[in-house]
């Protein structure tokens, strides 16, 4: 995939970090404010997709990126189900909220819920990015 014009590249360079950080913020505050793992994950995927669209990518490195994203996707899912299993092992109930609940409305509260949000964020961000890369890969095949 070829990149876009210089203007787009410069602007992307400026905003892409902010978008990414905003996605992380949405994930981490999932148990306090609207949003959460899924919404934050989509924003993170958006940042990654924007970077690829603006700067372009070689087929070889795209393949590598897809593999890495797919590994992260599995990692997110494993993290999520690992948390569920931890509840089963520590407290005797699947998905048990076994961590201390903390003070409501503080960042460190809600027990396992922030951890679940992080896992979902990784999974969704990597998953959507993988889908984007797969669709882009189809475009190569069609162009060839």
């Amino acid at each position, binding site marked *: 995939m070829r990149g876009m014009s210089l203007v787009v590249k410069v602007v992307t360079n400026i905003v892409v970090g902010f978008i990414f950080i905003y996605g992380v913020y949405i994930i981490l505050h999932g148990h306090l404010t609207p949003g959460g793992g899924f919404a934050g994950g989509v924003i993170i995927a958006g940042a990654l997709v924007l970077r690829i669209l603006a700067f372009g990518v070689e087929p070889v490195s795209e393949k590598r990126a897809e593999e890495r994203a797919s*590994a992260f996707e599995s990692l997110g*899912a*494993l993290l999520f*189900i690992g948390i569920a299993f931890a509840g*089963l092992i520590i407290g005797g109930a*699947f998905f048990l*909220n076994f961590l201390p609940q903390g003070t409501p409305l503080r960042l460190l509260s809600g027990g396992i819920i922030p951890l679940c949000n992080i896992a979902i964020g990784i999974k969704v961000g990597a998953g959507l990015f993988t889908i984007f890369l797969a669709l882009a890969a189809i475009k190569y095949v069609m162009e060839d």
Partner: protein
Amino acid sequence: MTIIPLYFAIPLLAAFLIPVIGKFAKTFTWLFTTAVSFALFVIALYGVAAVQEFPLIVCKMGRWAPPLGIVMVLDAFSAFMALVISIVVFAGALFSYRYLSHYTGQWKFYTLYMLITAGMMGVVLTGDLFNMFVFLEIAAISSYALVAFGVDAEELEASFKYMVMGEIGGLTFLLAIALIYARTSTLNLADISNVMQMFGQTTFFWTVLGLMLFAFSIKAAFVPFHSWLPDAHPAAPAPVSSLLSGIFIKVLGIYTTARMVFNVFGLSRANAPMFFNILIVLGLLSITFAGLTALNQKDYKRLLGYSSVSQIGYIMLGFGIGNYYGVAGAIFFILAHALAKGLLFLTSGAVVHATGTRDLNKLAGLGEKMPTTAWSFRFGGLSLIGIPPLVGFWAKFWIILGALKAGMLWLAITAIVLSGLTLYYYLKIENSVFLKKGKVDAKPAPFTMRIAMVFLVVLIVVLGLGFQQVIDFVVGPAANALLRGLEYSQLVFGYVTTGF
């Protein structure tokens, strides 16, 4: 600590571990999948033993009490379905090793295979309507991908057709869930059953039930909603065809229908004879139409696909009869058909693996070259027709007994006569693939494939000989679990308060 979450959590865990390890070790991935399937089989056996003692075991996710939290409910019917799933999944996993040798990206296959298992296990265990939808979609979406696994034009077309039809069913189910949630403000099956009971059999009741029956009929491929199945099941790799035809359509179509009709909506032949007659009509339509269509098929797997649609009709017939023998027969038939059709699709896989074609006109004389496959096919086919003492005979016998006990002599005779169709199309494959003289190059099936087929043959024979034990410990309790109807909700809430 309870074992219930393990049913679906273990395959989910395996599904997400495989992409991490699978790229590096092909054989290990297969061993891992087979080991996980076997572990599920052991868990399912333990579950069947557990429900002998308790009528119903409730597991609260994260200790949230219903109706607010999600519960997993293991009763005799769920335990039975989970056992059948694990048997077919185990045989298919064993079979996959050599069969997949000419595919690339095998770890993707095993990931999807474990996901579809997790989805099916979730559907049979959940006590929550929306949770059921989610698991149903996990299983369904994995199956779309598995059907398209070969990525040839034929497979992609079949998968697309299947996906469109399947999603119409899935979305109709979602519509029914939305309507139920709007009126009852709950998603817990037991709670819905309580609220529905207060409403009585109103227009709303029948609308929702009709939508659900439509959705599940597509998933189970009853005639006239069957058109996707004869394309999709043959296009999939053989272990997946075996899984889809053997158990998938029964979990997504039959289990869900039976659970909704009997336990949630509380219908029985006594209070809704008309509805049960509709089930019988659906059943007879499937048996006759798909059976007749199967007669002039020229593709090994496509013929088996039509046969599945036809045999599914018998299961619906059993439920439609609605008395103990009919329902027990239907449940027994789920087991018998899962074993037989699972086995027949595995034999088709062995034949395709050896010869590279599934055209009945091109195949010949494999009876001598592939003896294990040929004899496995014969056992599976005879069980499907209903020859004693194989397991298929007892299943059909119980359904016919149910029809006689309900005073429907014509139905019993029709069911027996329609078995002739099964006999005819079974003999057609037997004749053209195994008996007919001809020169087709083929080597005997590889060892792992033979083990998988022999495993199912042994089950067909042993369960047929020990049918009394199967009825007493597995099928009978499962039928009673359905027939106790609305008592289901009291049991769910009763066990919650005792805090099992």
